């Protein structure tokens, strides 16, 4: 963030307004997509997350000036992002990686009453 001459600032103000417009549009698209009822849940999630990420990128990149920030800050934020994904990914992975035969009772409370797979009975 070195040169902040009045001229440069004026240029960035124009950019800020563009970003602002884009954020509004992004919000509109997210909400719109919800109302048009995309058939696939995965698609809905992917779209919503994609738009949120673009919006986040715009805010961080322009309003927070990350686009022209120092390497040091990139390093700090990069490692933070990495450790955050580690936390999220590994916990979720561990949840799905319990020993074969493990049953999460909450998730199968309805199913467990009928599904033999939950508590395999000894067969004859």
């Amino acid at each position, binding site marked *: 963030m070195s040169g902040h001459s009045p001229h440069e600032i004026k240029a960035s103000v124009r950019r800020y307004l563009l970003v602002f417009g884009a954020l509004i549009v992004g919000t509109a698209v997210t909400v719109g997509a919800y109302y048009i009822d995309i058939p696939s849940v995965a698609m809905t999630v992917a779209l919503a997350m994609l738009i949120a990420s673009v919006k986040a990128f715009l805010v961080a990149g322009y309003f927070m000036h990350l686009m022209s920030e120092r390497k*040091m800050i990139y390093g700090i934020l990069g*490692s*933070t992002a990495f*450790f955050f994904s*580690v*936390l999220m990914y*590994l*916990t979720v*992975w*561990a*949840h799905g*990686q*319990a*020993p*074969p035969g*493990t049953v999460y*009772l*909450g998730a199968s*409370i309805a199913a467990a009453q009928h599904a033999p797979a939950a508590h395999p009975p000894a067969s004859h």
Partner: protein
Amino acid sequence: MQSTTSQTGHTEAHDAHHEEPGFWRAYVFSTDHKVIGIQYGVTSLIFLLFGFFLMMMMRWQIAYPGHPIPVMGPILEKVLGDVASGGVMSSDLYNSFGAMHGTIMVFLAVVPLAFAAFGNYVVPLQIGAVDMAFPRINMVSYQCFVVGGVVMMVSFFIPGGAAQAGWTSYSPLATSIPTDGQTFWILGMVFLITSSLLGAVNFIATIIQLRAPGMTWMRLPFFVWAQFVTAFLLLLAFPPLEAAAVMQLMDKVAHTSFFLPTGLAIGGNLANVSGGGSPLLWQHLFWFLGHPEVYVLILPALGIVAEVVANNTRKPLWGYKSLVYASLAIGFLSFIVWAHHMYLTGMGTAISTFFQTTTMIISIPSVVILTCLLISLWGGSIRINTPMLFALGFLPMFGIGGLTGLPLGLNYSDIHLHDTYYVIAHFHYVVAPGTIFGLMAGIYYWYPKATGRFMSEFWGKVHFWTSLVFMNLIFQPMFAQGMAGMLRRMVDGGVNYSLAKVGNDAIGGLSDTMIGMNVGISHAAWLLGVSQIPFIINFFWSITHGKKVTSDNPWDATTLEWQTPTPPPHGNFATAMKVYHGPYEYSAPGQSKDFAPQNEPMR
């Protein structure tokens, strides 16, 4: 609280010019990093002693289950009531002392002492800075720590007593115990976490921004590196525990079910909660902090030991760069090994392979660090003084603690060792004769800088040798007990096993020898307590009566903290510092002295 932090910090530099601050500004609400360091140091030493006190009482119960505690028993009964009726430690009291021993030792004693006290006092001096980057935030950090400590202490006296679910506070146990102790624990933790976070931001900013001219990264004393990595661990690992604490608080006070599964039946009846939560989620979030935390406990101690070893061998550290890179590697890896505390919670092959592999890999940089420190001794002219004794004692003790982490790190052997006294012995070897020895080395080493006087060498040596002996007498037998299958957190010291053997002729009871060791261990623990008396007296007596230093640099050291007036004034240095070379130029060829301070060009 949040964003003000970063902006309010820099005003003092202007205000505090010249005029002498009054008592309150100078000692209580000081923003001087050295005063804050000493505040942290004294407070955390008191907590250290208190944590040990709890354990000395617990050791009585372990050795003589059901017998009233001598001296302390009646006092406990008076102060705490029913939980100590007849002066006997009840199961609930044992559990809460155990949980609080762990919590206090880790979060109120060792972290504040190793990271905040030494870091505050020494780091700005070592990098040639006038203060921390944000002095007022520094003060707030200490105040948060005190508040957290007070909340924890108060919890002993509320009805039902302090938290009883172990320092790990696993849900649903933590939420289901019908006392408010756990709520206090959570609130206390939130303050302690905030304190550490503020400290971490401050340290990192200070180390990056305020290094004196010429103090490049590879010229930083190793202690600064250790603190730098530690600060990052605190910065990034603590917030998830804070999040977990918030959720546990919600479970406790707003009756949510973050960590409570569907169909939970406390006391036989279905609990009145919505369910749908996950008990393992708490464990993941806890250990995501918990494992980096153990490196927070050890890295500053390693840093101190490195300083003391370099100084007293009168030669450069061997493999300075390896030490730095190994610390960075440890810092990085410590975020991805946490589930080795959870092998037996039900883990499939893939996930446990991942965590075992990272656990084995993280032991390599520790081996590198220990090897570098060991080899640094070779070719030295080894001066034996009290700081050096503690530093030398640290090395094999950390070795034992670290090596015994390996069989725990492999899940198949952990099946036998998990939650036995083997684990207790493993980590106490790293934190007690390990970290605490490292911290003692630091106290004896920097004491002359802070006070202008030495602590007594003779009593220091007495302190060291007795501590060394008793520490080993305490923790070595625990390996044997653990191997034999004695489980931790047993209020009866494991007597149940032998009862089983006697009364019910069941196989698997502990032998009398194993149970008998409890008595020996406890006596050793009390004698360890006695061994601290010379230290405590020495510590206070020497402030006014110790041998005066004859120069600002009594140990003939190279690093910048010794190039200041003694004790360093507000603003630290008489002249602005400029750094010309690396931190450990001892016995460099062609010099007139056997040490070359960093601020003096070498010939």
